[in-house]
């Protein structure tokens, strides 16, 4: 038997630290979100269950869950929720919070690409699709990277041929001029947010 505490402490933590976390308590457990999610069958815990787990005080289980990383940002749950919970945002918020606490699953692929993507954009202000893709393929080491790249070679060449992937991007490519400004904005925003959440 799980002896969950069914106390409010984790709910309060979520309310304070997770994007739109204050709405978790408003879930009425209808399950429409779970039934509306395109990747629903692949979640260990549907949003409905995650909300219940938060209310049951299951901090560890929630934050180490792989589930919220399955969100494709399709927003279907948001528009269907009869209680108007911003479910997509809460999933993003939970994922981010788990990531920041380093409780999120280490090898979670979406977690990994999310970090790559963000780092890529913060560096130059714009996402470099080629570097991003390559970094993604090589995220699990050089050998796997070569394998991944080979596997996707046809697609890559097709895109190059169609003028939609420029090999020149590897040399730098598109970027913002005020990269320094962007990095300072991001750093400041994170500093403020961390302070607000007591993570600083």
């Amino acid at each position, binding site marked *: 038997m799980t002896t969950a505490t069914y106390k409010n402490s984790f709910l309060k933590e979520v309310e304070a630290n997770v994007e739109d976390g204050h709405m978790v308590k408003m879930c009425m457990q209808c399950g429409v979100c779970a039934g509306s999610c395109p990747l629903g069958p692949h979640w260990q815990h549907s949003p409905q269950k995650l909300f219940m787990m938060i209310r049951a005080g299951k901090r560890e289980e929630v934050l180490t869950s792989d589930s919220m990383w399955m969100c494709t940002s399709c927003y279907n749950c948001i528009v269907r929720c009869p209680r108007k919970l911003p479910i997509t945002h809460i999933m993003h918020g939970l994922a981010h919070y788990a990531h920041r606490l380093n409780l999120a699953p280490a090898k979670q692929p979406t977690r990994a690409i999310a970090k790559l993507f963000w780092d890529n954009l913060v560096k130059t202000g714009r996402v470099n699709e080629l570097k991003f893709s390559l970094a993604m393929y090589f995220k699990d080491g050089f050998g796997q990277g070569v394998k991944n790249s080979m596997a996707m070679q046809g697609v890559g060449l097709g895109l190059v041929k169609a003028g939609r992937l420029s090999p020149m991007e590897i040399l730098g490519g598109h970027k913002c001029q005020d990269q320094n400004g962007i990095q300072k904005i991001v750093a400041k*925003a994170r500093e403020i947010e961390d302070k607000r959440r007591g993570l600083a």
Partner: protein
Amino acid sequence: MTKKQYAFYPGCTQQKGASGSNFTTSIQLMNEKLGIQLNEIPDWNCCGASIGYGEGGELPRLAINARNLALAEQHLPGQDMVSGCPACWLSSRETVERLHEFGSLMAETNEALKEAGLAFKGTVKARHMVEVLIEDVGFEAMKAPVVKSLEGLKIAGYVGCQTNRPFGIAGESFENPMYLDHMIETVGAEAVKYDQKVTCCGGALAFSEPDKAQNQIRQIVESAYDHGAELIVTPCQLCQANVEIYQSEINKKHGTKLAMPVVYYSQLMTVAYGGSAKEAGLNGQLIRAEKLEGFANK
């Protein structure tokens, strides 16, 4: 004719040589014909897209979006910000709404923007290209420049997610939005009814969870085939890329023979407005839209 002026936020995929560059190509003639002038926001940055949250969190994401909005306010005052990409639009619009709703977030965002000498006043409106076409131009006016009716072309209007949810086009239903079908009909083609109009293509998870995303894509393409479509049309860059690019992967893995061309509404309109295949960016297709090219070459 005075042109309608907009602060244009192209977004990363619309850059030259990027995956959505054929969209950028195709809107030139379309906007020309419809009297729309897009003024690119100087030094715009990435919106964070639908995957940036993992590392970016909330405030940094709001702040980088506010940077674009602040630049638009500063350099192109009085103009609505228009995005071609639904993810860019969603991020920008969400930023505007959240900053207006929560004063504390607005203050924090501006504190961050100050680091780069910027400030967001909150005067700019974030809109999507499709909104501009429907609301500022209108279906009637969209029809006016048609010189080649695309009669006989059966098209699956694939709306996908982010022009549809959570904000959507005003007056449309989330479950069965009709605007894309109307746009298809405006250029004389036939919008087929099929059941995957608003199904998610897997979004950014096409990278991280390829099998799951490809399963989504397969459903979309197969349903379009089943209902007689010869072409898929979409307003979304990620939808276009995912649904087009991965068909070959799906074929490889599952022995299917998917080869459904996927184009943007703007490519359709450019052809109908008399543009060449090149002007419509049709040379940028991985799966050639031969029927549409046929109309262009007529």
